[in-house]
């Protein structure tokens, strides 16, 4: 029954199997931090800090817990409380609690590192461990999908000849004309929640991660299908990514409630906005790249100055999670949508609502393309609106399950949508005719049949 599972083996995002080479000093970042994250963080992190000890940063793990002893002390195995507990023979005090002991080679790594002076080999001892461990090489995707995964993100290539969809540890690239598989891009986080193509079409930003474990933004070279940068690693999924219209910046929203803005191509972090109190689920830039809109599970949508990060306005009209945002073409208003099954249009100047559009189910990410606004909904519909007037132009039918993502290619006038059931449909925006329908899961239809 678990043939695929065994093929993929243990897909924990950090590869903790490799151990340090004997004559090189043990690296805290590479060798130890992944163990702490995997085995200790659940009980000794921000949610639970058993024994007053947290291991989510170097600084914390070397601080005293309730025992009065620091987790690690250079050259002192006796007082290094963490070492003492992981190597204890007494099961009642050995860590990790209620689990098997760490393998002997891992314990040996800790021992050697303490004896080598317990040095921190990162830049910032206060940084979250998750942000300092080296970016992992992700496992191979399944050769053939036993189940199709929800397609939470789709995007057309610059020329409209490729449609990229999120997969399992991969991106799959399809021919939008006939639904045939063109190529597969590997080394992607477990699930892809957002895709954004740079304005020149050369870079593809992928918001991906493993629920509850890892979130990262991987920037791929579109032509080569190779990772160029890994940005903004966090402990839970990245939920939206958006290149600025100028292509000089990339905004990232994640389940840690933070919006991060990175400079492109350097990848250096320009801004970190922590205004939301829950997941940031949607991001959008205005046309000149001066403002950034966001939607969050904290039931608000917000607009920020994209240079300073200053909060310009908060919109609380949804009363439910906000899952999609887009700027009105004239840039004075914002569209936002979410669990309340509506798109709201409201003014940036005073957050006053000026219009709303109702759906039969919750509404996901909004996509603005020129004069058109697109939305996908749990009512299985994909809809096209005249962005200026929010007048509905067309509703694209055919999805058999929730329509959870939508993309539009202006030149070829193609609309693509990903469904919860893994199905991708492509329509001609001019007449609403369905062009292609396929499961974006290689091998799935064969396996399923």
């Amino acid at each position, binding site marked *: *029954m*678990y043939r*695929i*599972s065994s093929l*993929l083996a243990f*897909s*924990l995002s950090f590869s903790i199997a490799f151990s340090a080479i004997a004559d090189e000093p043990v690296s805290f970042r590479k060798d130890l931090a992944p163990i702490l994250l995997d085995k200790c*963080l*659940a*009980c000794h*992190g*921000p*949610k*639970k800090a058993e024994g007053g000890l947290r291991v989510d940063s170097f600084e914390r793990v070397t601080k005293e817990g309730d025992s009065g002893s620091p987790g690690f002390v250079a050259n002192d195995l006796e007082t290094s409380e963490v070492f003492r507990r992981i190597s204890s023979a007494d099961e009642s005090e050995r860590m990790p609690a*209620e689990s098997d002991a760490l393998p002997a080679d891992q314990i040996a790594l800790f021992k050697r590192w303490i004896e080598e002076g317990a040095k921190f080999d990162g830049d910032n001892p206060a940084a979250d461990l998750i942000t300092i461990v080296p970016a992992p090489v992700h496992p191979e995707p*399944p050769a053939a*999908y*036993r*189940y199709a*995964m*929800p397609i*939470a993100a789709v995007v057309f290539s610059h020329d409209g000849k490729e449609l990229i969809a999120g997969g*399992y540890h991969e991106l799959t690239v399809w021919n939008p004309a006939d639904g045939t598989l063109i190529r597969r891009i590997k080394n992607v986080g*477990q*699930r892809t*929640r957002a895709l954004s193509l740079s304005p020149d079409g050369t870079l593809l930003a992928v918001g991906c991660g*493993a*629920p*509850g*474990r890892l979130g990262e933004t991987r920037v791929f070279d579109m032509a080569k299908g190779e990772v160029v940068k890994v940005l903004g690693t966090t402990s839970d*999924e990245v939920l939206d990514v958006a290149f600025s219209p100028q292509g000089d910046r990339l905004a990232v929203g994640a389940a840690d409630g933070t919006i991060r803005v990175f400079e492109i191509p350097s990848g250096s972090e320009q801004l970190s906005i922590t205004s939301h109190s*829950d*997941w940031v689920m949607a991001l959008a830039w205005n046309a000149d790249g001066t403002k950034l809109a966001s939607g969050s*599970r904290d039931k608000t949508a917000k607009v920020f100055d994209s240079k300073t990060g200053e909060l310009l306005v908060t919109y609380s009209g949804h009363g439910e999670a906000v899952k999609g945002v887009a700027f009105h073409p004239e840039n004075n208003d914002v569209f936002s949508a979410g669990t309340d099954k509506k798109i709201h249009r409201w003014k940036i100047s005073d957050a006053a609502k000026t219009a709303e559009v109702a759906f039969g189910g919750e509404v996901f990410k909004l996509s603005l393309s020129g004069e058109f606004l697109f939305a996908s909904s*749990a009512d299985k519909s994909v809809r096209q609106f005249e962005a200026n007037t929010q007048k509905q132009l067309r509703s694209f039918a055919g999805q058999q399950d*929730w329509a*959870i993502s939508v993309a539009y290619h202006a030149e070829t006038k193609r609309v693509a949508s990903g469904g*919860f059931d893994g199905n991708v449909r492509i329509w001609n925006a001019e007449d609403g005719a369905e062009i292609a329908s396929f499961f974006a899961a290689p091998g799935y239809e064969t396996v399923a049949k």
Partner: protein
Amino acid sequence: MKMALQGIRTGAFAVVAWAAIGGLTRADDFTLEPIQVGAPQRIEVFPPAVTLAGVREQMQMVVTGYYADGSVQDLTRAAEFASTNAEVFTLDGSVALPKADGSADLNVTVGGTEASIPVQVANQAAPQGVSFEYGTLAALSKQGCNAGACHGSPSGKGGFRLSLRAFDPELDKLTLIHEDFGRRTNSLEPAESLLLLKPLMKVPHGGGLKLHARDPAYEVIRDWIAEGCQLDPPEQLRVVKLQVYPPSGRLLKRPAHTQQLAILAHYSDGSVRDVTELAVYTSSDEAVASVTEGGLVVGKDRGEAAVIVRYKEFIESSFVTFVRDIEGFAWNNPPTNNYIDEAVDAKLQQLKFLPSDVCTDEEFVRRVYLDVIGILPTVEEVRTYSADTASDKRAKLIDQLLERPEFAKFWTLKWGDLLRLTSKQVGGDGVYKYHRWVERAIAANMPYDQFARELLTASGSSHLNPAANFYRTATDTNDCVETISQVFLGARLQCAKCHNHPFERWTQDNYYGMAAFFNRVQRQNTPKPDETFIWVSNKGEVTQPRTGKQMKPWLPGDGDVEQAEVDDRRVLFADWLTRPDNPFFAKIEANRIWSHLFGRGIVDPPDDFRDSNPPSNAALLESLAADFVKSGFDRKHVIRAILNSRTYQSSFEPNDFNKDDAKYFSHYQPRLLSAEQLLDAICDVTAVPETFGSLPTTTRATQLPAPDLVKHEFLKIFGQPERQTVCQCERSSESNLGMAIQFFNGPLIYNKLRDGNNRFRQLLNQQKQDQEIITELHFAAVNRPPTEKELAATLNHISSKDEQIAQHNAETDTKVAAMNKAVADIRKTFEVKLFDAKLQTITEAIRVDAKTALATEEGKRDEVQKYLVAKLGASLAVSAEEVTAALDEAAQKIVADTATQIAELEKLKQAPGSRRIEALEDVCWALLNTNEFLFQH
């Protein structure tokens, strides 16, 4: 007011939540006694035949041994199980597991006895998916994920919301499968699903470790995910019944103290599945027994416990009794006065508790007065009763008290709490009318069925028919459902308004089905102040908010009422309620009466009847209720029967063989007097009555129509309810610091002790001797004469006052002497002292231009004068004469002041005997502070 209401409701909720989050109990949490198999006459294996028709099926076997002495014990842990064909089925301990289609036998051997059970195995070649509802949701319930304090709370936890105890599979389907793009499950790598990683604590989880990979629930959830998170098909077989084996009634005697349960789900097609692993277990009394996650009941102490078994929306229970030998225990065949004693004794004998002796006449007279009419017997009443030598004097006294007007008034207070009689609810006039209606009903001993019917079907003007106020206090349909179910059905139904009751069989459908009886009640205010007109509309239906379904009126036990198009649906309800065979009605009231007389219900709290809160003596409650029905719902009859029982008349003093008992009525349990009883008692002891606003001066606290007519600080502190809810729990019996302060030095007691016309001052005025006064006070407060020791100590206290007086006077003399000396010193040295200390006085005195002065100590005065003139003359332009005058005046004032002080001190000196009254205040204060006074005992 709103806040207080919230508080009570939240409090109740919190208790439920706490009970819900207790972790799973595992067998290795307990030390189990080895089973002493002995020589059973026969063994019985359950189930008698096993069918395992699917790869996921299994069967928990239970083996019971029956012995020659009539005893029974669970031998499952000791038995050996063997399959005659391991290719057909195998055994994991006492659980049979299928292997391949076919049939074989399961042989059980224990204690030299054997049994054989046929086992049929089928459908092993076909896949059997995990059911969403009966597998996954049951597993989540098992681990407590959807408990009220966790993800089952209305807003969920950490963004993850499940329906409480899986009552709403639609919502759970959305949350588990679709929400957040399927983030919680991973069908490609099931073990990597967040739904498993979180409770396993492989990723941080606010709720902590809630699941182990070895738990049956783990496999169920993992497999369900691995199969692609499939929903149940429409043709999914439904569970129609949950069976618990063994059923209620098992009695285990130490060393036997464990009982393996087998839980079978019966499906709509007649098939049966073992759900022992996924059922959720709770014990009604954790001190008596616990239940492990695997359904092993572990007895800890003697007593009875109901094991509550929950699986999906089904709740069943099984009562298990645990007994053990108590060294030195011998049943002493105490006399029985009536059927009550027989039922109580049967339980006591079974559990090996020995009832206490009968209480003294003095204890009885106090106890029965307080319970029947709410007030203390007077000194004369106690004396008359004590002097009576008739053998049936207790029964006679009971009969007399039941006919006193105070009986109706006092029991109206109890019903006033339940009916929420307040002037806020029913208006200033309404409250008196409603109160009088209840009082008359009780005084006339209106049969309880009629009483309920008149309230429930009341219509018309609330002035002309005060019972109609019932629908003014129950302000809307929901309030009606909750009030009526709590008062007349003993069920707290509030939970079911929003979701199926988490611990009871009441469902949301039941709630709205009951509502359909009452939603047509209309309330209209008339132009007259405080008058509401109650009438019933002939249309209007109730919609279940979750399903949107229109509800038929529904009756517990009877189901939907099909013929509901009648003039007044309330009549249908009242007909059902007051039927003699109604399973709730008589029991609830009989139990409530019992709780009023014992301070504890047979079901306790008395308005919380549910499987998970079983009666401590079911037979007793049954016979009480039967007697109540047979008497024609005669409440006085039941009260009389209880009061005449030996059980009621037991001493409060426990013996060696019942001191651990608090719920089987082996002895009388002392309890603090209620707020109103206490206030009346203080008034009676001190003979200083309390007046309540403009109410007649004869009104006692126990006879107040409503708590909000006159707010009384003392009553509030001692737990007088505001009557905002129908919950008996609103009357608090918790003790608090405020109470201690009231009795230590509160204004109420202080003023009554100081009152010029109180009991002991009257007696003093009548020239009574100390001993007589002390005896009288004891009779008034604790309804008996003082013991010799008490009397001696009290007299000693009074005489010690004279010694205190002598000491006090001596101290005063010393003080006076010191002051006189000080004056003399001033006179000698006043020039210095005056100049330093009284300069201000002097200069002011100078300004007022004193013209005359008396000279003291001429010579020195001249010197001072000279000095002052030199010092002040120039700057202040005063003459020597003026300084002289000022000086004299100042000195004189000091001397005069001191003289006044001395005179006052002298006045405080006391004559011998003058503090007798103070001593008596002390005595009375001390009596009011004894537990004997404060407690009903």
